């Protein structure tokens, strides 16, 4: 319980610093902290496989992708966020968001759920248990997620393919064929 409290406080601090960080790269580093803390809590909740998957997929793959994009888009820039168009909406959003979160948390603490007294079966949350559930009753969902990932890959290809993007944006190529203009410079009206 003490360990959980310590990790929980660290998680909340890392989570707040994701939100209030001045530069996106600090946000990304704080999000790595959130991810690793969550993996430790998963271990405490006897979700061994999920803890490993969290570290590999989130800290290993997703955060590296984030850092790539952050360095690609914000390298060497010190942009200040533009002013609000509606004064005070930022503080109102933060205040009401945290009020709802606090209310939900208090509600969760005040209403304990019935707990099963017996200890968990050995191997609960391990690779075999999760794998049997994934390839057994939950196979439809697994196949659905596989399709979803495939669709995401196709979507990314479509989005970053210049000619497809031109078609989507409805722009017409004004240069004669044979003259190649990179889409970033060729038709940027702004």
């Amino acid at each position, binding site marked *: 319980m003490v360990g959980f409290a310590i990790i929980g406080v660290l998680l909340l601090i890392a989570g707040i610093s994701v939100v209030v960080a001045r530069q996106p790269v600090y946000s990304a580093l704080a999000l790595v902290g959130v991810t690793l803390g969550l993996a430790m809590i998963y271990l405490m909740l006897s979700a061994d496989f999920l803890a490993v998957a969290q570290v590999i997929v989130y800290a290993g793959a997703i955060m590296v992708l984030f850092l790539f994009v952050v360095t690609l888009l914000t390298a060497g820039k010190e942009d200040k966020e533009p002013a609000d168009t509606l004064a005070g909406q930022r503080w109102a959003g933060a205040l009401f968001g945290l009020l709802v979160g606090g209310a939900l948390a208090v509600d969760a*603490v005040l209403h304990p759920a019935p707990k099963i007294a017996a200890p968990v079966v050995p191997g609960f*949350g391990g690779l075999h248990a999760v794998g049997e559930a994934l390839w057994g009753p939950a196979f439809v*969902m697994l196949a659905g997620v596989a399709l979803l990932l495939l669709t995401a890959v196709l979507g990314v290809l479509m989005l970053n393919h210049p000619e497809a993007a031109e078609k989507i944006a409805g722009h017409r190529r004004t240069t004669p064929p044979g003259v190649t203009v990179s889409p970033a410079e060729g038709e940027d009206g702004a």
Partner: protein
Amino acid sequence: MTLNYVVALAALLFMIGAAGVLIRKNPLIMFMAAEMMWNAAALAFIAFARNYHDVTGQVMAFLIIATAAAEVGIGLAIMVAVYHRRHRLDIDEISELKG
């Protein structure tokens, strides 16, 4: 450690993420806050799986992780595509949805 406190932690993490989406204007930071909301949902699933000794909750958390990976790929691709056209990272730049 009891279920209550884990679910309370998940709720707080979720709302920190939601507040981040509400108050920031940098789409990258908004996106990371949204990632935190996915993670909070997965944490709640795993807490309930442990409490009721049912591995289905962990399966759901696994599916959440996979779905989040797909979402990150698409979202970052959209951001890069928008940045190529506008050269600014500001969510208000893409507030008008015209083709």
